[in-house]
């Protein structure tokens, strides 16, 4: 499979999902003269479906998917995981604890840095940014169950 084939199929599928959702949630389509809430999305979804199909059809000459170079995928997967953890924990554990744990995870588990430097960095980031944004710039950041 080439990159253009994969991208084209992906875009066409996304267009199809939008059409299916419009149909499933019974959004009024309206008419050409008086478009309803589903009309413009449906037109765009059809356009995406068609352009995806053309990109896929013309994509024989594009580079193969494996040739693009995905060597950073382990790092990327770990970063995505840490980001997901931050989204889940932000309002449950509070800003400072979440950021500290995220930094420790990234530095010690992903980057294999020494535990001491990871802890110092994590504490500096968590408390430093909290002080800068919440205390000085008055950006409200969530506090956790332990009061910080």
């Amino acid at each position, binding site marked *: 499979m080439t*990159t*253009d084939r994969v*991208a084209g199929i992906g*875009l066409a599928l*996304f*267009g199809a999902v939008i059409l299916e*959702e419009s149909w499933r*949630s019974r*959004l*009024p389509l309206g*008419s*050409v*003269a*008086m*478009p*309803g*809430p*589903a009309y*413009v*999305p449906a037109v*765009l*979804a059809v356009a*995406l479906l068609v*352009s*995806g199909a*053309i*990109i896929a059809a013309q994509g024989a000459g594009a580079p193969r998917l494996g040739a*693009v170079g*995905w*060597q*950073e995928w*382990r*790092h*990327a997967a770990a*970063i*995505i995981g*840490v*980001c*997901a953890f*931050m*989204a889940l924990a*932000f*309002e449950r554990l509070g*800003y400072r604890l979440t*950021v500290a744990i*995220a*930094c420790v995870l*990234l*530095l010690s588990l992903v*980057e294999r*840095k020494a535990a001491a430097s990871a802890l110092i*960095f994590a504490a500096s*980031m968590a408390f430093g*940014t909290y002080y800068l*944004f919440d205390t000085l*710039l*008055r*950006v409200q*950041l*969530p506090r956790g169950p332990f009061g910080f």
Partner: protein
Amino acid sequence: MVETLGNLAAGFSVALSPPILFYAFVGCVIGTLVGVLPGVGPLAGISLLLPATFGLDATRAIVMLAGIYYGAMYGGSTTSILMRIPGEAASVMTCIDGYAMARKGRGGAALSIAAVGSYIAGTVSIVGLMLLAPPLAAFALRFGPPEYTALYVLGLLVLAYMSSGSMLKSLAMAALGLLLGMIGIDQMTGYFRYAYGVVELGDGLGVVPVAVGLFGIAEILATAGQPTPPTVIKPKLRELLPSRQEWREANWPIWRGTVLGFFIGILPGSAHIISSFVSYAVEKRVSRRPEEFGHGAVAGVAGPESANNSATSGAMVPMLALGVPSGPIPAVMLAAIMVHGVAPGPLLIQQQPALFWGFIASMYVGNVMLLILNLPLVGLFVNILRVPYPYLYPAILVFATLGVYAVNNSVVDVWIMLATGVLGWILRKLDFETAPVVLGVVLAPLLELSLRQSLAMSDGRYGIFVQRPIAATLLAVGAALVLLNLYAVARRSVDWRAKMALAEKGEAP
């Protein structure tokens, strides 16, 4: 003209007040840092600092955010010249000849030429902004829904045309962005669309999480795990002065880059990036010694650096005069002033003269600040690059998450940032541009609303778009661009956009 000068004088009285000077300085320093740090572009920098502007008034907020924008253009050249790493995408072309000059021991001269060129371009282009924005705003008062519909369509077509590579792919990306922008409550009927039961999506996808995800997080995902950056070439202070010959060689490229950058800046798209590519191509074309390009040509630094700075002022023209963002960065800046209850659009200049003229005057002041920051203090900024990347990217990630969360105090925005970050990373791998997606998200609700209002006005007749001269002209220009692209495809010729795509990948056209 007299009226303009009077307004400018009033603007300087705002811009030279200590609080505005302070926020302009803060913006310039942060912008330079953002430009110096690889992986953090001006968009990510502005998005991260957006929540910090909520406590300020609209003038201070826009002055600081604009300082970040044009400050990043100055700072981006430093890493390009001294390390061959573009601090931000607009400095890619500066890497080629700037680094070659540094290897010949002329790194200091290259930095000076880049900074002086940026200063001249920044200052001259503000004159263009000052003279062009008010009459354009007055003209735009004639715009109704059909004209705005045509303008948005033209904006998307121009962006697709200006993008490097395939126009079909860019249009597909724009369609993807428009579809993502239609998530949420339909403004005309109140129907809840494509939200899959997530109540927080009622207001739609915010431009900040989408932009930070597609640009900032995608960049981190693509570059994490890379080896330590190469050694930094540190010029001494006395080496900063270019020779007379180098000044002479830089003179015309600076002026050409300034004019070119300003007009490209007005057009929708990633203007600051495109302008530097086009300027480099122009300088190579007009040079008497094109063989020097790639081996330390002064014009290869002076032209692109002037162009990308000039483009930042150009991008402010449609933003301030029409209230229409020409790309993701002006879109975030518009969001910043809307937070303060200021309505963007043609009436902005009339209703908020202190904001508009104070902002213009602050840009003059900011350019002087940046010249001072980027020459004698260059060594200070270069030191930041000594921070190893394994420590740098977690910090960027924390700032990104913090910035996105703080806009609406919503964890859903953090999830949107993560999802669009993964999408942006995959799209980059598959060689698709992500700027049209962001512009699509911004324009989707505006485009759909103006289209449906136009049809309501005309009793459902599409003829309204060709019967009104302004709308018809705008659509005709859009159609011409599509035809131009089809012509190039039919001839299977390698036009300037294809050459730009090859240059971005580091391949000779």
